[in-house]
Every structure is written in structure tokens, then in C-alpha cells.
């Protein structure tokens, strides 16, 4: 018996529940599903395949069930309707949802070791999002689904911050909000809703800007996972032909804006890393100098230290510029020689290259000052000397012989170098992006037979010759030049600008840059790619979907420039606005504010704003003379409705008084006084016959009656007559 009673009660409860559940337009349901798909798609590259499986099954189930439910509802509805209303069908019982939620959370927790904190959190969020759609029974649930959707869509910005993607995400968030608008104002036209949404978001912009500028930026608790991201750009091991592949890449490496004028193209040698160990095939960073580097990394050679480095003679004027580097998933940075930076997270190596403490997994910006006339390392330590002379002389015997022969002819280092460069220039050496294949990466073969190669070939062969001739030298890899964008007044350096050159150590003069490529193809250095090379490049890159005719059009170039300039400013100001910059800005503001007059101006502004607000309020009160009496009347009505004496919406004051007289006669005396006074003030006298004192008098009487009324209401509530 008891059990049956329980179950009856339960079924009643569930009936009540279902009757409470919200009824929505079928279009709204489908819009929710489509938006869920889109929201999840923004993150799709980050998901584990199991979650993708789960989400697609969940979405597909939802879709099928809703199509069925819509058909059912359409059958019940009248004929000429394209949409219909029904409450969300329950697909899974609530205990099943709970079980799924627990199982999924446990699974994510287990997978968390592999995924890392950030990704597992995102998986948890998306998992909740997928599950929540299964129970849209109340209005509250709809809110939650929409808010979750917005969260999912915006969390994709952790991984990608380009301007196009950000715009797409903003549009998506708008679409999510449209759902809410359609829910609350279903009969409003879509266009009107969009207008309303835009208006509302315009209101929100000042708050967003203030939050963006002033809200403290916490450093994220997570590390953006790097395992998945392919390494982009240069690598720390260079074989002949590596850079030629890069040369076909249009990907952006970094962008630079100079504070004053920019140096000539031929001066723009962007040092990335120095390779001083050669095993006959591959150039790489020497293990010995690696160790050195690590030590220095621990010691954090900042500018203050760097400028004091004994190995440096700072000379000439500095060139200041800002670099915005794209994620390379490496740690080296790009700068002109000799570069110094004041930023705490940037260090300098003994080979004068800058590096970042950590992996560049997101676009970062840094400020650099370069002193191009500096003498690098006038003194060379013996260990460094031996390192930069070490050679596997068996690998390329012909070159070794050639070097020794030259050495005998020229005792002066300078003369020897010049002779070699002249050789490159005079004899038939070609600069090409498609060098003929060379057996075993033999430099001999390149130098004596094929004679056609890329910057790496020349730098490699040249460095080898130098070492064989007893001159300390090393290979430097980086970028050369860049493309100037006049719209944004900045320089973009692409992967195709990758370059390799040689550094030679000469006594007294230190490390000197020698670019053998310049001897072979001077145009490459002066102006970037020569027209000949550009043609080669175009031939190589044009596939079936060649955009060649489009690319030659002037307006297309202009447009592209313009868009790139916008993208640059976006990256510079929005993405580059890091916590460090923020604290700097705040400090500046504060120091300026505390400096005397600015503080006064600030206070003046504050005071005027306050005065304006007060003036507005006063004028608003004056505009409505009987404002206070009306307020009191409305307050009385609110009080009455709390005690279940509710005025119907369209009921007039007169009728409500009559209503009270019939139903709650004990309240009539006090209420009638208030109501009559309200009516007298709001309807009877349009002119201002009543002076202020009589108004105040009336108000005090009304307040007295209001208190009495309240007293009576409480008495009635407590059952005391």
C-alpha cells in the first residue's frame, strides 16, 4: 500500500514536472543543435577522437529525435505551418544522464595525464555541453546550454588568435545570443533582433574595453600543449636543401615595426641561431656550446649583463624596434646584430642570439634595440677557437685541398676571403631554388661540379673552406630582408625569407658577417628575390588552383596589404597586450596621476561626473512633479501584492479601491486616502497649483496611512482581527 502511494506521488510529481517543461519552436531546437555543432567545431582540432565520437553520436541522436518530434507536432498542428511548438522529448532518463556524466568525467580524469590540464578541462566543458542538450526541460536549462555554448566557442581562442578566427568566433557568439532573443521575443523579426543585439553589444563595448585594459591578467594555469603542433620554420639542424623547402612557404615568420626609419634591405640579417658543429653532412649547435648556453640560460643574461659582456664593444647608434613573432614552437627569437632587450623573459646567448625562456607557442611580441656597428668578440677564447675550426676534413677532401692551396697563396685572411667571393662571382655559380641532387650531401660535388645551389649550399661550402684554411668561422641561420607594408608601416618576414650565411672571426674585428650568396646573386640580398627567382618560385608554387592571374591585379594586392596591416595592428595591440604590458601601463598611469596636476584634473573630472548625475536626477524629479506621490502609491501596490492583494494589470485606481472595499474592507480607509490623493495629484490638476509645502504635507499624511496599512496587512496575515 505504502509503496503504491509512494509511486503515485512520484508519478504526480513527474506529471507536474512535465507540465512545467518549456515548449519551444521546432526551429529553435534545430538552431540549438546547429549552434552546438558549430561551437564544437571551433575546437575540433583539439579533441580526443573518443570525444568526437561521443559528441557526434549525441548530436545525431538529438537530431533524429527532434525530427521525429517535429513531425509528430506538425501532424497535430494545423496544416499550413512550417514550424511548430513542442516540449523537448526526453531521450535519456535523468539517472542515465547522471551515470553518463560520472563515467565521462572519470574517463576524462584518466585521460587527463595524456591530455594535460588545459585540454582535459576543455574536454570536461564540452562533455557537459554535449550532455546538457539532453535535458532542456526548463527555461533555466536553455540558459545553461546557451552559456555553455558561448564558453565553448570562446575557449577556442586559447588556441588560435588570428583576426579572422576571432571575428568568426564573435559572430558565433552573437548567433548563440540570438537564440535567447528568439526565445524571449519570438514574434520579433530576425532583422530587428539582430539590430537589437548589435545595439546591446555596442553598450557592452565600453565595459569590455575597460575590462581588457584594466582587469588584471592572470598568467594561465595551463601550458598550451606543444606535442601536437608541428615545428614551423627553421630547425636547429640544417642539412643542405632544408631551407629550399622553406623557401616555398608563404607562412609568416615574424613582423617588425621600427621606431624610426628602417635600415636598408641588405642590412636586414635577422639572426636566429648559430650552428658551429659540422659533421660533414649536418650543421648543428655544438654540444659544448649547448652546455655553455644552458649555463647562461641559468644566469639569465639580460641587457644589463649583456651590455657588460666583455666580449662586446658597443658602438654606434641603436635601432629600436618591436618584433611580433608567430608561434614557432621553438625558443629562439629574431633580431638584428647586435641585439639587446630589456624584457625579463628574454635572454642572450654567447653567440649573440636572443632566446625566449620557454616555447613560443603563441604569438609573442618583444622590444629590441640593435647596435649594428658593434664589434662582436674581439677576443676569442681558445675553446671557442678550436670549436670554430674543428672539421671533419675527410668528408670533403677536394675542398680541403682547395683551402690549403688558397692559404698558401694568400697569407692575409681578408684577401683570402675576397678571393673566394670573387670565385663565386666570376665562375659559373648559380643561385637556384631547385638545385640538382647531390650525392651524400657532398660539398665537393656541389663546389666543383653542379655549381648551382641555394644560400645554404654557399654558406656551408664557404664555412667549410674557411675552417679548412684555418680561419674560425660558423654558420648562422635566420632570415634576410622582409616585405615592407606601407599601409601598416611594418615589415613582414615570411618563411621564404629564410637564409643562411657565414660568420668569420678576424683578429681585432671580431665576428664578421660574410654572405657568399651576395657574391653569387647580389639581387637576392639587395632586394629579396630577383625577378628570375620569382618566376621560378611562381612556377614551383602554381598548382591546379593557381591564383596567379588574381595575384597580379593591383586591387588584389592593395586589399591584401590592407588586410595584413589590420591583422598586424590586431596582433600588436590586442594579442600583444600581455600582463606585463598591462602592469607597465598601470604603473605609468598611476605615477602620472600622482604627479600633482594630473591628479587634480582627475578629481575635477570625477566631481563633474558626479555633479552631472545629480543634476540629471534633480531634473528628472522636477520633470515629474508628483513623482513622489506616485512612487508611494506604487510602493503601496507592491506591498499589497506581497500580501496577496494584487491589482490586475489593467485595473484602474478607482476600480481597485472598489475591489478592496468589497474584499478587504479593513484596509479600505487607509488605502482610499492614498489612492484618492494619488488620483487627485495625477489626474485632477495639470497646472501646478499645489505648492511644495502642501505636497510635503500630503506626503507625510500618506506615509502615515501607508504605515497603518502595512500594520493592518501584517495583522491580517497573522490572523488577528
Amino acid at each position, binding site marked *: 500500500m505504502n509503496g503504491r502511494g509512494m509511486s503515485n506521488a512520484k508519478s504526480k510529481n513527474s506529471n507536474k514536472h512535465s507540465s512545467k517543461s518549456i515548449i519551444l519552436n521546432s526551429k529553435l531546437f534545430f538552431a540549438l543543435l546547429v549552434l552546438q555543432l558549430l561551437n564544437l567545431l571551433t575546437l575540433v582540432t583539439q579533441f580526443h577522437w573518443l570525444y568526437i565520437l561521443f559528441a557526434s553520436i549525441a548530436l545525431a541522436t538529438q537530431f533524429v529525435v527532434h525530427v521525429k518530434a517535429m513531425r509528430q507536432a506538425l501532424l497535430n498542428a494545423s496544416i499550413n505551418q512550417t514550424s511548430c511548438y513542442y516540449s523537448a522529448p526526453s531521450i535519456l532518463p535523468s539517472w542515465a544522464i547522471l551515470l553518463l556524466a560520472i563515467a565521462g568525467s572519470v574517463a576524462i580524469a584518466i585521460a587527463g595525464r595524456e591530455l594535460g590540464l588545459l585540454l582535459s578541462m576543455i574536454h570536461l566543458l564540452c562533455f557537459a555541453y554535449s550532455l546538457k542538450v539532453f535535458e532542456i526541460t526548463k527555461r533555466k536549462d536553455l540558459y545553461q546550454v546557451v552559456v555553455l555554448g558561448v564558453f565553448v566557442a570562446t575557449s577556442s581562442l586559447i588556441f588560435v588568435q588570428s583576426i579572422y578566427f576571432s571575428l568568426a568566433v564573435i559572430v558565433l557568439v552573437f548567433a548563440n545570443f540570438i537564440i535567447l532573443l528568439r526565445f524571449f521575443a519570438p*514574434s*520579433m*523579426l530576425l532583422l*530587428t533582433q539582430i539590430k537589437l543585439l548589435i545595439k546591446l553589444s555596442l553598450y557592452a563595448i565600453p565595459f569590455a574595453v575597460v575590462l581588457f585594459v584594466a582587469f588584471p591578467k592572470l598568467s594561465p594555469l595551463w601550458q598550451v600543449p606543444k606535442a601536437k603542433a608541428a615545428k614551423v620554420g627553421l630547425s636547429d639542424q640544417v642539412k643542405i636543401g632544408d631551407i629550399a623547402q622553406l623557401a616555398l612557404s608563404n607562412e609568416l615568420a615574424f613582423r617588425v615595426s621600427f621606431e624610426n626609419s628602417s635600415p636598408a634591405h641588405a642590412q636586414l640579417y635577422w639572426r636566429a641561431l648559430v650552428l658551429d658543429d659540422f659533421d660533414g653532412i649536418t650543421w648543428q649547435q655544438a654540444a659544448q656550446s649547448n652546455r655553455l648556453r644552458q649555463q647562461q640560460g641559468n644566469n639569465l643574461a639580460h641587457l644589463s649583463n649583456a651590455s657588460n659582456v666583455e666580449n662586446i664593444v658597443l658602438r654606434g647608434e641603436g635601432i629600436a624596434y618591436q618584433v611580433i613573432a608567430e608561434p614557432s614552437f621553438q625558443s629562439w627569437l629574431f633580431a638584428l646584430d647586435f641585439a639587446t632587450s630589456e624584457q625579463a623573459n628574454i635572454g642572450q646567448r654567447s653567440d649573440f642570439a636572443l632566446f625566449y625562456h620557454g616555447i613560443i607557442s603563441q604569438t609573442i611580441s618583444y622590444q629590441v634595440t640593435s647596435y649594428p656597428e658593434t664589434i662582436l668578440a674581439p677576443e676569442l677564447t681558445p675553446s671557442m677557437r678550436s670549436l670554430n675550426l674543428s672539421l671533419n676534413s675527410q668528408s670533403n677532401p677536394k675542398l680541403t685541398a682547395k683551402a690549403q692551396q688558397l692559404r698558401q697563396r694568400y697569407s692575409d685572411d681578408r684577401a683570402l676571403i675576397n678571393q673566394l667571393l670573387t670565385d663565386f662571382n666570376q665562375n659559373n655559380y648559380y643561385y637556384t631554388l631547385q638545385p640538382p641532387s647531390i650525392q651524400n650531401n657532398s660539398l665537393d660535388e656541389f663546389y666543383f661540379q653542379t655549381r648551382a645551389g641555394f644560400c645554404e649550399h654557399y654558406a656551408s661550402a664557404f664555412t667549410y673552406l674557411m675552417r679548412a684554411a684555418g680561419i674560425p668561422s660558423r654558420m648562422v641561420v635566420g632570415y634576410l630582408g622582409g616585405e615592407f607594408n606601407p599601409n601598416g608601416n611594418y615589415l613582414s618576414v615570411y618563411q621564404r625569407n629564410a637564409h643562411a650565411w657565414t660568420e668569420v672571426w678576424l683578429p681585432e674585428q671580431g665576428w664578421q658577417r660574410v654572405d657568399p650568396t651576395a657574391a653569387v646573386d647580389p639581387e637576392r640580398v639587395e632586394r629579396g628575390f630577383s625577378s628570375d627567382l620569382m618566376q621560378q618560385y611562381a612556377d614551383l608554387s602554381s598548382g591546379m588552383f593557381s591564383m596567379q592571374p588574381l595575384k597580379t591585379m593591383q586591387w588584389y594586392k592593395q586589399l591584401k596589404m590592407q588586410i595584413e596591416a589590420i591583422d598586424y595592428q590586431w596582433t600588436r595591440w590586442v594579442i600583444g597586450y600581455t600582463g606585463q604590458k598591462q602592469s607597465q601601463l598601470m604603473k605609468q598611469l598611476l605615477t602620472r596621476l600622482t604627479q600633482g596636476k594630473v591628479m587634480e584634473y582627475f578629481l575635477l573630472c570625477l566631481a563633474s561626473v558626479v555633479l552631472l548625475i545629480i543634476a540629471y536626477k534633480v531634473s528628472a524629479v522636477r520633470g515629474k512633479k508628483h513623482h513622489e506621490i*506616485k512612487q508611494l*502609491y*506604487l510602493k503601496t*501596490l507592491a506591498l499589497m501584492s506581497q500580501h496577496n492583494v494584487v*491589482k490586475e*494589470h*489593467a*485595473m*484602474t*485606481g*478607482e*476600480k481597485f479601491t472598489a475591489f478592496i472595499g468589497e474584499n478587504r474592507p479593513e484596509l479600505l480607509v487607509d488605502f482610499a486616502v492614498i489612492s484618492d490623493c*494619488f*488620483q487627485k495629484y*495625477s*489626474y*485632477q*490638476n*495639470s497646472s501646478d497649483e499645489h505648492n511644495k509645502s502642501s505636497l510635503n504635507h500630503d506626503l507625510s499624511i500618506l506615509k502615515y496611512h501607508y504605515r497603518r496599512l502595512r500594520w493592518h496587512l501584517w495583522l491580517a496575515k497573522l490572523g488577528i482581527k
Partner: protein
Amino acid sequence: MQTAVANILAQIESVVIGKPHQVKLALSCLLAKGHILIEDLPGMGKTTLANTLALTLGLSYQRIQFTSDLMPADVIGIAIFDDVTKSFLLHPGAIFNQVVLADEVNRASPKTQSALLEAMEEGRVSVDGVTHQLPEPFFVIATQNPMSHAGTYPLPESQLDRFMMRLSLGFPNIDAERKILQATSSHRDTTDIKAFLTVEQLREIQLHISQITVAPAIIDYVIALCRVSRQAESQAKALSPRAGKALLAAAKSWAFMENRDYVIPDDIQAVFSPVCEHRLAPQQHHIFDEANELSQHILSQVDPINPLP
């Protein structure tokens, strides 16, 4: 002034039995210088009401039965050559009266209808290029039959708008019907009806009504009601500012009948349905179904205490 109005009401109610509210509305419409459209089934006392109203106010009165072959000249009049004066003289039509009862106005052709309705709006008529002023005050009481549409020309919206109120009498209750049936003669002798007002008194009352106080809160209420009708999801036709003016005028008149010299929201509510229903839903005839009226729906959406929050 108020006693005269009370006497008038009492007399009309003794003739039109059991419909005090409609009688009061009709009288307030005339006092607010508005024309009335009475829409009801045959035999409900439309003509009696119009007749009594005219006679009680002491105005000259003529009735035109609208038929499909009625010509504009029949309504307005015609210029005829006079042998004696050797000139054209106007033979005034039925419209040259202070109260004109246009019976079954929807039976006449649109041409005739518009002749009448133009006269209502302008207060004068033109015959052969000569303009003739109509008597003052000038009221039109039109009736129409919502059933049996065959051979009728329904009034278009623009012309419906010229009537301040649309009334319908509806069936009488049991007591009233008993009284009607017990009455000795089928038609009450109209000679019994006394005129309670002179034209001067009527003008005085109209002037007084126009001076009744309308507070800003009332204006707000009227604006709010009009705005509700203009919302996109509203099924009703939007209320024009002219409708709002008519509403205010009628409400003033109603306040006068209620012995007040200021308007309260109750006045607006009392006259809202007759003033606005035919503007909100011109093609619908909710004669017996007050609850479904669009005007009731619109009234229910506005809080008179706080109309424009």
C-alpha cells in the same frame, strides 16, 4: 447643466428600454461632437435610439433609408431652375438637418456613401460648384446590419474612421424584454418626447466638455494604448493619432456625464471599446462577444497607473 443631461438620459431610457449604458455612450458621443455608427441586427431598436436622441436634443431631424438605388442627389439635394428668379436654386436634401439618421448605410452604393461621409467630415456640401454650409450642430447617426451581406457595400476603413463610436445594442435582458412586450403600442408615439435642450444650451455643454482637464498621466495612458496596438505582434490595425484624439474627446464627454471636471483612466476604459474597436478590426463584428474584442485585449496590456514605465 448636469440636471438637463440627467433628464435627457432618463427620457431616452424610458424609450430605449434596458440599455442605459449604450444610451449613455451614444449621448456622450453626440456631446463630444462625434458621429455614431450603430451596428446591430434588425429590430433591436437602432432607429428608435437615433430618433429619440434627435428629438430629445431638440434638433431638426430627418431619416434617409439607404437603398442600392439611392443617388447622392437624394442625400445632398439638387439645384433646380426657378422660373421666377431665373436662376438655379438648391432644393436641399435630407442632409440639411442637424441630425441625420442614415438607415442601413451599407446598402447604398459607395458613391452615395461617400457623399454622406464627405459631408460628415467637412461640415458642408457643394452642389454645382456652390458650397453650402450644413446646419450646426450636425450629427450623423448611421445604422448598419452586420448580417445578410448580400447586396451591401461595407464601409471602407477610411470611412469607418469618421465615426467616433460604433455601438451595438444587443439583446435586452428578461426584464427589459418583458417591459418591451408589455408596452401598449408597437411604436411609442414620438410626440410624447420633449426637447430638453435648446441649441444654445447644447453648444454651452459642448464648450464645457472641451474644457475638461486632461492630466499628463491620461495622455500617457492614451499614448500607451495606441502604442500597444502598433506593436508588430498585434493582430489589430494600428490606432492613428486621430483615434487617440477621438478617444480623449469621448473620455472627456464621459467624465462630464459622470459629473467630473477631469478625466480619469476609468473614463478612457469606458469609451475605449466603442471608440476603438471598429478602428482596430474594421472587418470584424464582435457584436455579441465582448470578451474576444481586440480592444479588451489591448486594454489588458496597459497598466493605467503606470502606463509608460
